[in-house]
């Protein structure tokens, strides 16, 4: 077993095994949500839309020509390289009887496709550096680096092979063993001049020797070798190695291992993170069938696939409606791209309690505005995932700030909170609830309670609401903030501002209740150790 077969076998085992494991999560994760049932439009109609999205990258095009151009070039260059170059022994040679990698058009095309691919990759890397730097994580750079490494090392490998006198000797030993030393010298002269091989010996320049070399080349080599000049990238790159450096043979070996090693690494890493997106995203685009709306009745398998299809392109987070909230609160789970990653971990039961609390906060801050679903290059029905996961989290007893507050009674909160210093509400609100002036005018006339529609529809306010609005004002006036924070009235306030508008004494009742809720949210944020 040599390097090639061991490397290829390991990479294939890793790719196939990992892909199966990834596909397994499509079934498992989707099942965690409640089934929503129902069926979308017909398979055939969707297939065309999905295929168009996949082949033309239509969704990517909608949000910036730069990323589309980069990705298109990368794929258009990379796929021919993968099939015609990397898999030449099983595809190209059986299809084209006269195939030799060193003959044109193959030699030329290899350079052309490599260059196209590399150009695309550079555009994508620049896009990420300029627009997505802060949102990027190691795997984003790793994918760019590995693919870039395969391409660049390929060029270097070819470049060193062009220069290598060792390879020349190996070829003449195999294909021209009967050569006289004079003939060999003539051939070397020709190859050094025309094809850029770098011999360390002195080579004659006499025209008759060159002529002989040309004849021999035509006779012996040209059948399998196009001029190396058609490998226009690699041949040009030989200029990078100073002529005094005699490293072509060693360089060729090093880059052979590097090129193949990186290619095997890329294949082996296929199931890891976004390396898998050519498969998962492609499948998701087909399943979504070109739809940009959120479709009710997504099957659990489609949800599982959607969860796995993120390419981390960052468009959702760049366009997210609640990104200003993320800017203030700093919780990464407020933005869709990170929230999706943490949602996956949560479904796999691999999220720490503090991270779960952050996920719940992000999940509740989302306003379900559909924008991420519309901009997603991978066509993930994020809207459906957000609503389904919010519901699932609530059913697990994680219903956000409001749900946490309602888990304990007003009295329990009073006990818990009275033992610690709550600080001034000024840190979260305008400080109205702490300011004695807020309540100076309050004469406990009960107008606020009298006009409150929540009090009005409650059959038994003392049971449903713990405290009436005017009682809350009175407790706050006495500095008993802890007694009020858990009261149902605070959390079931419908924010209609009737109390405030009707107060004859100008007490900002509704604003104060808002402040208490903001403070409750702040207390929980600290308690749960959220970001």
């Amino acid at each position, binding site marked *: 077993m040599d390097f090639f077969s061991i490397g290829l076998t390991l990479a294939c085992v890793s790719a196939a095994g990992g892909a199966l494991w990834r596909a397994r999560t499509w079934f498992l994760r989707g099942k965690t949500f409640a089934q929503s049932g129902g069926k979308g439009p017909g398979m055939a109609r969707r297939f065309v839309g999905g295929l168009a999205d996949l082949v033309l990258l239509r969704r990517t095009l909608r949000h910036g020509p730069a990323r589309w151009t980069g990705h298109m070039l990368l794929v258009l260059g990379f796929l021919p390289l993968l099939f015609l170059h990397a898999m030449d022994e099983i595809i190209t040679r059986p299809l084209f009887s006269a195939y030799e990698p060193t003959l044109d058009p193959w030699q030329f095309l290899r350079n052309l496709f490599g260059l196209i691919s590399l150009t695309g990759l550079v555009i994508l890397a620049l896009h990420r550096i300029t627009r997505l730097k802060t949102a990027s994580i190691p795997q984003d750079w790793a994918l760019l680096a590995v693919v870039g490494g395969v391409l660049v090392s390929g060029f270097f490998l070819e470049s060193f092979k062009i220069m290598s006198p060792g390879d020349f000797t190996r070829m003449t030993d195999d294909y021209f063993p009967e050569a006289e030393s004079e003939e060999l010298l003539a051939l070397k002269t020709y190859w050094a001049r025309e094809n850029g091989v770098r011999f360390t010996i002195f080579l004659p320049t006499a025209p008759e020797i060159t002529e002989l070399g040309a004849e021999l080349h035509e006779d012996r080599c040209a059948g399998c070798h196009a001029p190396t000049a058609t490998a226009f990238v690699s041949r040009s790159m030989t200029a990078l190695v100073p002529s005094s450096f005699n490293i072509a043979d060693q360089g060729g070996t090093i880059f052979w291992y590097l090129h193949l090693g990186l290619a095997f690494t890329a294949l082996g890493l296929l199931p890891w993170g976004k390396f898998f997106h050519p498969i998962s995203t492609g499948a998701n685009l087909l399943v979504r069938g070109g739809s940009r709306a959120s479709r009710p009745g997504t099957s659990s398998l489609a949800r599982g696939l959607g969860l796995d299809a993120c390419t981390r392109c960052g468009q959702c987070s760049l366009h997210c409606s609640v990104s200003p909230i993320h800017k203030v609160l700093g919780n990464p789970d407020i933005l869709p791209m990170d929230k999706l990653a943490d949602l996956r971990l949560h479904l796999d039961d691999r999220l720490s309690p503090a991270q779960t609390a952050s996920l719940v906060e992000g999940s509740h801050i989302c306003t379900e505005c559909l924008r991420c679903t519309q901009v997603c290059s991978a066509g993930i029905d994020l809207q459906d995932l957000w609503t389904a996961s919010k519901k699932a989290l609530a059913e697990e007893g994680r219903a956000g700030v409001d749900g946490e507050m309602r888990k304990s009674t007003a009295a329990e909160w009073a006990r818990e909170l009275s033992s610690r210093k709550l600080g001034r509400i000024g840190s*979260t609100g305008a400080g109205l609830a702490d300011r004695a002036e807020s309540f100076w005018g309050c004469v406990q006339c009960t107008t606020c309670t009298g006009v409150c529609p929540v009090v009005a529809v409650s059959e038994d306010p003392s049971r449903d609401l713990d405290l009436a609005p005017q009682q809350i004002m009175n407790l706050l006036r006495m500095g008993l903030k802890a007694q009020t924070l858990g009261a149902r009235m605070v959390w079931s306030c*419908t924010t209609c501002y009737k109390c405030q*508008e009707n107060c004859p004494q100008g007490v900002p009742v509704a604003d104060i209740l808002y402040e208490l809720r903001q403070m409750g949210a702040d207390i929980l944020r600290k308690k749960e150790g959220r970001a």
Partner: protein
Amino acid sequence: MKYAYFPGCKIAHYLPAHGKSVEAVCAHLGLELIKPEFSCCGYPVRQESRDASVYSALRSLALSARLGLDLMTPCKCCFGNFRHALHQVGQDEKLKFRMKNFLTDEGLDFPETTSVRHFLQVLDDNYGLVKDAVRRPHKGLKVACHYGCHALRPENITHFDDPFAPTIFERLVALTGAIALPWDLRLECCGYPLRGRDETISGLLAARKMAGAKASGADVLTTACTYCQLQFGAESGHPDRSIPAVLFSQILGLSLGLEPENLGIEPGEAWVRFAV
């Protein structure tokens, strides 16, 4: 007239008909709507963080200011929160300082001059224009106007209309030929803010209002707020909806002679039979 149009988050997925009808009406009246990519108004997060809520509002106002336009929204809650945010930064220098820092970070200037208008205010500002544009006035359509809390109160912040005896909605309804009926609960809350928080009370508030609107003899209850419509409309999935809830933009659109399908009115919506 030209406005920066702020649809708010819920329209795209939950109530596209609202956006569609408001845009159709504005286009018909020659009110140009510019649509920059706005973010959330900050209303939904106001329960959790004052800074986050105020900043969300100011960012969108700053985007309008950059366009040199006033911001127009068809949602009362968005409207109210924009007003509230401006009030908060006007009251609190430290808050304003923090907000300015966030804005500067995004390359935006503090929106000193941008004003916020609700869709109804914009129509009222162009009262004569709307009046002249009515082609097919409704005959005999009786409506109960639901005002929506967050535009109306607190009046010292929202400056929408008289908080105890507002008239703007009835005035505009009259333009369409429909009859706005008086009813006791027209200024009461729809209950949407308690959705997902206290479903029982939320449901009770909605049921009480709809029963009140029905009792007033109205054919339909009309709203001019995305959240209120979501609470009363077919979208709510509420079992005891005693009266159809209709977006005012749709009632107005029909009276302007616009086609139902351009207003997001589904074929066979029961209330349309009243609107002839």
